[in-house]
């Protein structure tokens, strides 16, 4: 008869049957995740410094060579997004385990390190089912739209000074356009599934989108007004002395809330709402189609915190220890700062996910229309006024 220990304090660790608690091996976990982050960092350096340097050395940086270079960068970014998704899913599960007094995945790979690789492989080989009631073309297209929309946001994310695929001067407008697109994928996927739960999920996604997009756009506008530019690199540069979250405290808070809504993240995960809508918009998706929704969700879980960092926390800024700005070493260090700041925000999002229940969908809409939009407008006016008298 197994005896359950009566724990001495509130925050005890469970004793597993037949498993040594030492097996959790925190040093191993740290090593594995550091390795993942290292791979991530290497890909970033390779994409933004390695590939241009290589092509520059070969003299292929114009004409078709340029096209080839950009293509290679995009392929590397795709790899990066896969690494992000695999790492974040694993981190989410391990972190939920930590919060919930258990271990989380730990048996496959060192410290559970290749668990998500197995998951991805399994989904790859699983039957990709199209229901009879579905609209096949839209049903197939929807995950792709969602994923491409999330992935396209990478184009304007500055990982370090100058390390950006397209440092366009309409970066913010591009972001608004592209981030809204990902909701279309959810909407189309839900509607085309021919399932009522998916339909409700899609309708919720649509209703949610029109609610949070307006405060989100207003916050974008505030940041643009404050920084005097629409380019993301310019926004980061404008924060050299003072990070935006201090003068723009109100838009910052609104932006975090709206990001949670855009991510379809607890406490605003209404389109998915597992305990209400079974799986919401992706209820009929299996195999790889589902994996793409999953992938897009976790890529966004990286990108939206990254945007918080870009807009409010000085992007890649950090002490350079005398490194020459613009050099490879400085770029690598800056991208590390950027990643670290983003990681803190990812962790905050995971923390919210592990802790909070879910609001009701109309409560978000009410909050968005009655509180967030007026507050965002107020923040915009305030930022414009401050900008007039200060800068």
């Amino acid at each position, binding site marked *: 008869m197994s005896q359950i220990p*009566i724990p001495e304090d509130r925050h005890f660790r469970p004793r597993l049957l037949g498993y040594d608690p030492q097996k959790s091996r925190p040093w191993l976990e740290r090593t594995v995740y550091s390795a993942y982050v290292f791979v991530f960092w290497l890909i970033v350096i390779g994409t933004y410094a390695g590939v241009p340097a290589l092509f520059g050395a070969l003299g292929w940086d114009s004409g078709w060579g340029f096209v080839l270079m950009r293509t290679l960068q995009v392929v590397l970014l795709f790899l990066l997004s896969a690494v992000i998704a695999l790492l974040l899913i694993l981190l989410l599960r391990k972190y939920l385990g930590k919060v919930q007094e258990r271990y989380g995945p730990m048996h496959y790979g060192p410290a559970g390190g290749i668990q998500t690789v197995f998951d991805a492989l399994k989904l790859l080989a699983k039957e990709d089912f199209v229901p009879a009631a579905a609209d096949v073309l839209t049903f197939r297209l929807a995950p792709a739209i969602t994923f491409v929309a999330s992935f396209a946001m990478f184009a304007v994310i500055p990982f370090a000074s100058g390390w950006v695929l397209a440092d366009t001067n309409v970066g913010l407008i591009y972001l608004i356009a592209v981030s809204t697109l990902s909701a279309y994928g959810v909407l189309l996927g839900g509607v085309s599934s021919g399932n009522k739960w998916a339909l409700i999920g899609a309708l919720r996604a649509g209703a949610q989108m029109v609610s949070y997009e307006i405060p989100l756009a207003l916050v974008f506008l505030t940041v643009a007004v404050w920084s005097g530019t629409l380019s993301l690199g310019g926004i980061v540069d404008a924060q050299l002395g003072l990070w935006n979250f201090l003068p723009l405290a109100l838009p910052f808070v609104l932006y975090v809330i709206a990001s949670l809504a855009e991510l379809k993240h607890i406490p605003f995960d209404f389109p998915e709402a597992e305990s209400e809508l079974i799986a919401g918009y992706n209820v009929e998706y299996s195999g790889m189609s589902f994996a793409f929704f999953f992938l897009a969700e976790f890529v966004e879980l990286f990108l939206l915190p990254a945007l918080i960092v870009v807009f409010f926390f000085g992007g890649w800024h950090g002490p350079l220890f005398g490194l020459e700005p613009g050099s490879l070493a400085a770029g690598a260090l800056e991208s590390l700062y950027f990643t670290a700041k983003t990681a803190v925000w990812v962790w905050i999002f995971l923390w919210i996910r592990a802790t909070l229940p879910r609001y009701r969908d*109309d409560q978000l809409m009410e909050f968005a229309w009655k509180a967030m939009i007026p507050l965002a407008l107020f923040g915009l006016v305030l930022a414009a006024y401050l900008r007039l008298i200060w800068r």
Partner: protein
Amino acid sequence: MSTMSLEPVPGRSDEMIVNMGPQHPATHGVLRVVLGLEGERITRAVPHIGYLHRNHEKIEEARTYPMVIPYTDRMDYVSGTQNELPFVLAVEDMLGIEVPDRAKKIRTMFFELYRLASHLVWMGTAMLDLGAISPFLYTFWDREIILGIVEKTAGARMLPNYYTFGGVRRDVHPDFFKDVADFLDHMERRMVDYEHLVLESPVVHARTIGVGVLSKERAVARGVSGPVLRASGVAYDVRKAFPYDAYPDVEFEIPTSPDGDTYARFWVRFQEMYQSIRILRQLVELTPKTGPYKGKAPARIKPPAGERYRAVENSRGELGVLVVSDGTDKPYRVKHRGAAFSNLQIVPDLFEGAKFSDAIAILASLDPVFGEIDR
């Protein structure tokens, strides 16, 4: 109304008929509710039960009296021994068996331990329905401790078949009282966390306050009992109204709330957990450490012809049983009065007009268990 599902109303194209269950994560088992949805608002709701109908009442007629007890266990499977007690009490009444005082107290301790276990399961699953994952894991870990205590004595975790006519089947494990006392210390600390997680959470407030209001008169007329009834302001508790076992010997209160909404039902269950801890604290002190655990019962249980209704207050309300005996060693008829069965009847009342998300919260606050509803 069709027999199996809702028919669309002619001319109403804005209503969507949705079938929720039997496999739905928020139905706590195999409930099926056919909903008419107008956007997010529920216009009509027809619950369908019976997906776990296991012919309890028929098969119990073909079993001898002691053999019925394990079957009763499997009704409200979350609250273990609580189901055995009404049947045991009814047969004891019919036979006139005297139960020793110590046996009564041990029974009551198990009864309250399982109430805590059941409310813990409720809290975890209700929070899961509201979207929070972590409380589920915390409550199940605490429940494991209770089941460990029960297992040491009764030999089984969930469905221990521990009560018998005249007392309990075997004496408690020597560690029992210490284990319970330790567990209560632990539980009191954990309750602080649970209050933070559940009762004080602003998200829970937003989801539950003013949602699914059940009026006092409606609750009584619908035969609702247990925490759901007490959350509507009726201080009806079988433990006080028709005391059984050791309940006359202990002090406890009946928490009631006048609000009748989903939050009130959450709150009342929380207060019941505090009362359970209080009862168990008293019983750890009051129960003699040694002594008889079983009264004198005949070797062959053959109650005289007649019938007897006995009820207990289990985790969900008044769990009753009507035992009809024809003088043989098998009951002529065993009719279970399910608390969750009665409570579930208010589903159409509370669902209609509510939002779909509210319906999930309301269902979580009713805490149905389908072993007992479908029997």
